[in-house]
């Protein structure tokens, strides 16, 4: 056996010496690109987006590559975009929300029916819709954070419940644009637009972008944002480290519900009508999840940038409009979108691997 010398004395009270300066072999342009991709997870979808626009621009020429068409894409993705912002929050906490579309539709129906059936002033109806969205979010948040039911299951259930409630409440009535215009212009507010030389920005589009900027700030630069990431990363560790996991989850789900209700308002502006059977209720969840994953966010939570979701929604929008304009068969379009989902994430994976 070794002698029992006081070997630790060697390092006792030692001053810090020069440490570990490993050679840095990755430099130059390539190195910097790789680093940029690594640090900005939204860069890959942004590049795909630019590439997709360029591709269809080449293919379709002026018809596609005009201010009008490009801003039309924004209008076409505004609902999915807002839902994707909401979905991102949930996905960052390692959850998933199947109810986003249904909440949006029911919120829009509530805004409409409150005004038209119950005679509530439109502005108040909108607030009631918002409160409803946040309320449903609170229910989901409660079930997820307190009862500890997995988000997929909670929102699967909430989806069905909200969708059924939507049909029951709406009584299958569609509120038409002429009525809306005449009696409740506030409901149509987000359909207004600013034109800047051919480019058309509806208020809904502008609101969508503002939502992303606000959430981007909150996630990156506030304590709440750090907590959202920590909860998504490892909730137990976050709890032990002093994050109020339950409260963070509650806030995320309520905010998500609220944003979905905002999406409901955006829907009214975009379609100039209120209909309970809007397909957003059925496929809004998959659409928003598609946008988020094409945007490079990890479904395991805690990783990725919310801007990725915006770019993801736009990528889908560009492909859909581009393929439609090129006259592709709708089934081929669906097929290509399916491949795009896998391809985009595969590419992302590959880039990250190379640059790791």
């Amino acid at each position, binding site marked *: 056996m070794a002698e029992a010398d006081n070997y630790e004395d060697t390092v006792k009270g030692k001053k810090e010496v020069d440490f570990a300066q490993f050679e840095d072999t990755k430099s130059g342009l390539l190195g910097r690109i790789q680093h940029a991709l690594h640090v900005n997870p939204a860069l890959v979808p942004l590049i795909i987006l630019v590439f997709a626009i360029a591709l269809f621009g080449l293919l379709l020429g002026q018809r596609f590559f005009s201010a009008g068409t490009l801003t039309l894409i924004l209008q076409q993705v505004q609902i999915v975009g807002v839902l994707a912002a909401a979905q991102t929050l949930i996905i960052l906490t390692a959850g998933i929300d199947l109810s986003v579309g249904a909440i949006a539709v029911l919120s829009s129906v509530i805004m409409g029916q409150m005004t038209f059936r119950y005679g509530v002033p439109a502005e108040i109806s909108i607030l009631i819709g918002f409160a409803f969205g946040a309320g449903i979010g609170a229910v989901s948040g409660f079930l997820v954070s307190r009862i500890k039911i997995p988000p997929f299951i909670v929102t699967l259930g909430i989806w069905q419940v909200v969708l059924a409630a939507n049909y029951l409440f709406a009584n299958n009535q569609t509120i038409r644009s002429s009525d809306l215009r005449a009696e409740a212009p506030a409901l149509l507010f987000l359909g207004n637009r600013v034109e800047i030389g051919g480019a058309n920005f509806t208020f809904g589009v502008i609101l969508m972008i503002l939502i992303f900027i606000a959430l981007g700030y909150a996630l990156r630069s506030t304590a709440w944002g750090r907590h959202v990431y920590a909860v998504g990363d490892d909730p137990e560790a976050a709890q032990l*480290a002093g994050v109020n996991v339950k409260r963070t989850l509650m806030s995320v789900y309520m905010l998500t519900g609220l944003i979905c209700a905002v999406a409901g308002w955006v829907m009214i502006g975009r379609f100039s009508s209120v209909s309970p059977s809007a397909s957003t209720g059925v496929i809004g969840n998959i659409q928003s999840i598609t946008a988020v994953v094409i945007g490079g966010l990890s479904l395991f939570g805690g990783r990725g940038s919310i801007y990725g979701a915006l770019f993801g929604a736009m990528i889908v929008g560009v492909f859909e409009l581009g393929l439609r304009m090129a006259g592709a068969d709708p089934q081929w379009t669906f097929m290509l979108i399916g491949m795009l989902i896998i391809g985009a994430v595969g590419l992302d994976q590959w880039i990250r691997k190379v640059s790791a």
Partner: protein
Amino acid sequence: MDQKGISVMEPILSGKNLVKRYGKVTALDHCDFELYPGEILAVIGDNGAGKSSLIKALSGATIPDSGEVYLEGKQVNFRSPIDARGAGIETVYQTLAMSPALSIADNMFMGRELKKPGVMGSVFGQLDKKRMQDFARDKLSELGLMTIQNINQAVETLSGGQRQGVAVARAAAFGSKVIILDEPTAALGVKESRKVLELILDVRSRGIPIILISHNMPHVFEVADRIHVHRLGKRLCVIDPKDYTMSDAVAFMTGAKEAPVDA
């Protein structure tokens, strides 16, 4: 603090009759515990003796099935680690409690982030990243953890030992009443372990008592004022390291020797 007048013999943190069961396993079996002001109390015991369970019960990480916890003489009911932290008890858990994808700085300030001064901080809640990074860098340097190249590096890219260092630095930086360390040097190298021991002594010299769980007898006997010997889910005895040898301690905790009657 209105506790200035208490005698030194009043424990700052104590547990009475703590019980915690996991299914068929009784991890804590009517366990008592006392930590006195300004001391370093080591907790030793076999693997599975219930040491981690004990400190989790004290720090709000688990809620005991029965029994009471007292801080400065008043009963407390920590429902979560946040409560305990709010009361000034800082813990380094065996599992470290880090968010792997977040940076070292983010992890150090998790749950007590610093905000920018002025409107940006108070209204918009903007974080003061610069200040947090500088602070984190200082604390790690104190621990000699300069092998870490970048304070904004994700924790998942650190070696096991480096992570441990970050966790210890966090506790030392923020603990105001009690610091609990569950095997803080288990994954550390010789040099880094020494830094942690020095830090522990340093913290005590600032008047803050420490609970140290460790399997490293030389370390325990070097720094501890008293040693709580844990066995089969409860306190077997408390010994003074000046009165007993390491062999005695090991013999008590493994059941090779009868424990002394008085604590």
